[in-house]
């Protein structure tokens, strides 16, 4: 019973992430303003860190290195978005 409930929570966690990514990509397509698009990707990146903490905390695999990994991936996504969407530019 406990295992079943655990699987359900993990399933919900993955569903939350999948839906968040889908909704973010929807919002991304529905706006043409680069700043709004940047904020959408920043929001998704921050949500990803929170999701990582939630998921790994629940599965008892949360570690400083895991937290660092999620933060690093999110920081890379934010940096790439800022460069790629023209928020910061190399002139």
């Amino acid at each position: 019973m406990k295992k079943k409930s655990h699987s359900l929570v993990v399933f919900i966690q993955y569903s939350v992430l999948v839906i968040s990514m889908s909704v973010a990509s929807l919002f991304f397509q529905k706006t043409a303003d680069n700043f709004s698009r940047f904020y959408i990707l920043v929001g998704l990146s921050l949500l990803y860190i929170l999701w990582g903490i939630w998921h790994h905390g629940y599965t008892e695999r949360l570690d400083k290195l895991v937290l660092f990994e999620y933060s690093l991936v999110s920081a890379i996504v934010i940096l790439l978005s800022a460069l790629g969407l023209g928020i910061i530019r190399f002139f």
Partner: protein
Amino acid sequence: MLHKTLITYVFFIISILFINFILVLKVPDILGYATDVKVSDLLTYTNALREKNGLSDLTLNDELSKAAKAKAADMFKDDYWAHTSPSGKEPWDFITGSGYDYIFAGENLAVDFSRSKDVVDAWNNSPSHRDNLLSSKYDEIGFAVVDGELQGRKTTLIVQMFGYQRQQNTVAALPPAVKKENPKPVEVPVAVPVDVPVPAVEVVPVIGSVLSTMSVMNASRYIALILGIFITAFISLDWFYVKRTGNLRISGNTFFHILLLLLAILGIWYTNIGLVL
């Protein structure tokens, strides 16, 4: 085991695509389309740049703005992005069509910008557009910032038109108003057109710097794309190697790291950064 994992990941990707597809169909244009480009800001930044270079301010002219709006509407209607329309209409046709009788005129175009300052900066960074911005021959300006669909995607077109009117070469000399007790009929001088040598109409072409401007504008975008693809490929290789060798290690969910990076790369690929013409 590897196949089961692969099927799970493929399921995740298909789920994201499916949910997104359904949402796009069910939620049309919930956010609308907007940019922060404003005529007042474009004028302020243009004049600030001129002041910095010791030039006089340009005055906003309604006829030039009308011409700029007509040009933007024509670009959306005939689906082109150029100074000359497919039917051969020149910028000057729009200017004269709006009733502006010019001696000098010029045109700058921009597309896909979100901020007014970025537009003026981009024009300033292109030598031929800068020549227009900093020409002492102009004293009036008109703008159009128009949203629409160009070549299959929503965007904002910005048209900037410069001019110097022929009518300005008339002199209006009116005497100072003096109150008299017994006013006598006086001959009031009226505005008299003065014959001044009119220079040939100057067409200011700004084509020619397009390619270099585009590549400079998109440099950051290409850097981001190359960097993103490199990092994603690196993480994917690492993930593949770990799975194949069966090494155990404490780490985050590599699949979703890759997915998040791919979303960002696709977003950058899908987005256009402002261009000037």
